[in-house]
């Protein structure tokens, strides 16, 4: 399978994510995207390095199983309505996402990058995923969907990291996963605290905390 196909599927999953109206489905799409990302290094023909194989396994395990598992558990425990409940409507979100993807294509073309990059789609996909993650973070009300947005954001950073995967030490790769882990845990704590304090996981209630 060519890496370009996987990358294109990733970009596609961004659009699906933005248009989806159910929390459960958003988590599912995040799983799909995580697994796609995990497979990209293999498709790029990097399977010969044992440490990259290890990284692939870890990525798929964390992004495709562990984090969705935690998210689904949180979803079960806090008993919230299933709707995504956005600030920005789905159509507008889709258009913004398209705008972001277009912008990333232009930006990626103009960015001063290391020469000899084979996967020309990698950088725009990374930027586009990053923007999508941000869009989710900014435009979705529920803390849980914000965690999903954070995940997507991290996926974008991961894609960018793939550009340098052969030169980058393992340390940085682990750093990415660790970062993500911390993010989910912090958000988990935040969700629980919002819930105990306000009896709801709507981040709008955090506005009461301002001075």
């Amino acid at each position, binding site marked *: 399978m060519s890496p370009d196909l996987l990358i294109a599927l990733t970009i596609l999953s961004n659009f699906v994510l933005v248009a989806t109206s159910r929390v459960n489905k958003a988590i599912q799409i995040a799983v799909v995207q995580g697994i796609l990302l995990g497979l990209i290094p293999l498709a790029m023909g990097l399977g010969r390095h044992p440490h990259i194989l290890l990284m692939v396994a870890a990525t798929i395990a964390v992004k495709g199983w562990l984090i969705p598992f935690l998210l689904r558990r949180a979803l079960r425990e806090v008993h919230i309505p299933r709707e995504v409940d956005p*600030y920005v409507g789905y159509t507008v979100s889709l258009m913004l996402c398209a705008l972001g993807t277009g912008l990333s294509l232009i*930006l990626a073309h*103009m*960015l*001063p990058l290391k020469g000899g990059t084979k996967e020309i789609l990698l950088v725009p996909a990374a*930027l586009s995923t*990053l*923007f999508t993650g*941000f869009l989710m*973070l*900014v*435009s979705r*009300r529920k803390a849980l969907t*914000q965690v999903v947005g954070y995940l997507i954001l991290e996926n974008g950073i991961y894609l960018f990291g793939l550009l340098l995967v052969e030169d980058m030490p393992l*340390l940085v790769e682990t750093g990415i996963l660790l970062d993500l882990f911390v993010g989910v845990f912090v958000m988990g704590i935040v969700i629980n605290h919002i819930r105990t304090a306000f009896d709801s996981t709507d*981040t*709008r209630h*955090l*506005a*009461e*905390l*301002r001075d």
Partner: protein
Amino acid sequence: MSLYLIAVALLMCSGVPGLFLRRRGGEVAAGLMSLGALMGLTAAVRVLAGGPVATLVLPPAPLASAGLLTLDPLAALFALPVFLLTACAAVYGIGYWDNHQEHARTLRLVLGLLAASLAFLVVATHALPFLLGWEGMTISAFLLVLTEDRLPEVRRAAWLYLVCTHTGTLALFGAFALLSAATGQWTFSALPLGFAASGRGTALFLLCLFGFGFKAGIMPLHLWLPSTHAAAPSHVSAVMSGVMIKMGILGLVRLLCWIPDPPFWWGAVLMGLGALSGVLGVAFALGQHDLKRLLAYHSIENIGIILLGLGLGVLGKSTGHPVIQVLGFAGALLHVLNHSLFKGLLFLAAGSFIHATGTRDLERMGGLGQRMPWTSGAFLLGSWAISGLPPLNGFVSEWFIYLGSFRALGLFRWPWSLLVLTALALIGALALACFAKAHGAVFLGAPRSEAAGGAHEAPRSMRVPMGILAAGCALIGLAPMLLAPALDRVVAALGEGTRVQPLAPLAHLPSLSLLALVLLGLAFLLWRWLRPLDPGRTLPTWDCGYAVSSPRMQYTASSFADGLVAGLRWALWPRSRGGKVAGCFPADHPFESHVPDLILDRITDPAFQSLSMGAVLLRFLQGGKVHIYLLYVLLTLLTLLLWMVA
């Protein structure tokens, strides 16, 4: 080196067992600290006595650059107070801050961390370990200051400290970046000839002066120092004042080590700042009635004296006069050690008074000389040393600087050496006046409050560390030639390229200690002669035969110093309120006076207050919505990306 590293590890872990022990945690921590200190001191003394310089290359794996630790004579000299004072503070802490007091376990743990960071920082000769140690020191000191975090003034002092010290660290990042740009590596190494005179050299010097000056408490940058030292527990203040602020000096000395040809004006700037810190520091100390704030201002004064010495050394180096260079640098470096000994002693003794009376206010003490004879003796010895009187150690280091500036005066008629002489003389006299005030207010006369009347002598675990520090003061004062070879080695590192003369004959050290012994003998004879006839009787203070005397009729600390404070009105701007009486039979009338800090209370506080008033205009940006904040992040990211592309 391995001995040294084991010592650092021991210091670091010293507070850990205490976390799990129900009792005796303080004793265990103090034992581990003392063991570590003994090992570290052994390693340092071995290097100072001429042993080989030990180095250790840290693995480059996580940092992309190999770190380097070097135990050279300079590091060893600074390691002496680090180990000595932190161990003394830990032992002192057993009695001073026992398990019943708040955060006792955390305090011991973090004190160990502070000691370890200091010991690590001293040997770091690479930008990264240096900054690691620096930050470790900063953060652990911040936590130590916060020990009594229920008090609002403690929280305020701790935040002020954190803000100031991180502003300084920012400058250090810049300085190290410049340094590595000049030498091509992050390891500390000599800079090329001519670099110091270039624009980058000037920037490096100013950044270092700012960054290290903030930590050292040089006068316009001292604003965090008084409140922090007053807010921390006394043994922590001892470590902070005795050791931590010296790390700023260590940084400056390291900078001078890298520069083969410092320009003349560097020395002039150092001397000017030294004179300013010294004179104003002691002047502000005179106006204080909080015992620990008073001592804190004296730290600023002593940093001033050290800077005077450093500046003199730089003058000697830049004009090629090794004698002046040796005397200036040796005076400054010896004063670093001396100040940590006597200031540690003074803070520990002050802690005992505070422990016994429950107040830091000089106006509420009094008469403690009879009730706490050991501690009073220790405080007297410390005051004697800090005032630079023979035969104690403060005199020896000031003697070097005096000698150096007299030589410079004879050689060149520089106005700068005149400045050093005047400043030193003024500092010495004012320090003596200030400690006469402090000593008189604390020990002499009748107790001014009930707490002072019921004071008790400190327990042995608090007296022993004071005794050790006092013995150190006396030893250096009486036999300075013991340290002379070590100082020679340190100064040699500072003056690469020039032939350095040995210090002992240069400063007439043998005759100095002979003179000290003779003086001491005379003093002993005088004491024998003046001894009371019947030592068993204890009598109240002589009250001039007045029939109904009361403690309120004594001189207070403020009234004692009032003449000098009024004379220094142009610099101190003391504030007083009330006290105007009218009529023949005036009613009760309140009066209060205090000396606010020149920089903090008159300049930075008002400036930041008006800044925060103006910042209200930006309040609309903070809506309390996470989404909006994230939007800001997104917009910043987009702007940066577009800016990079365009």
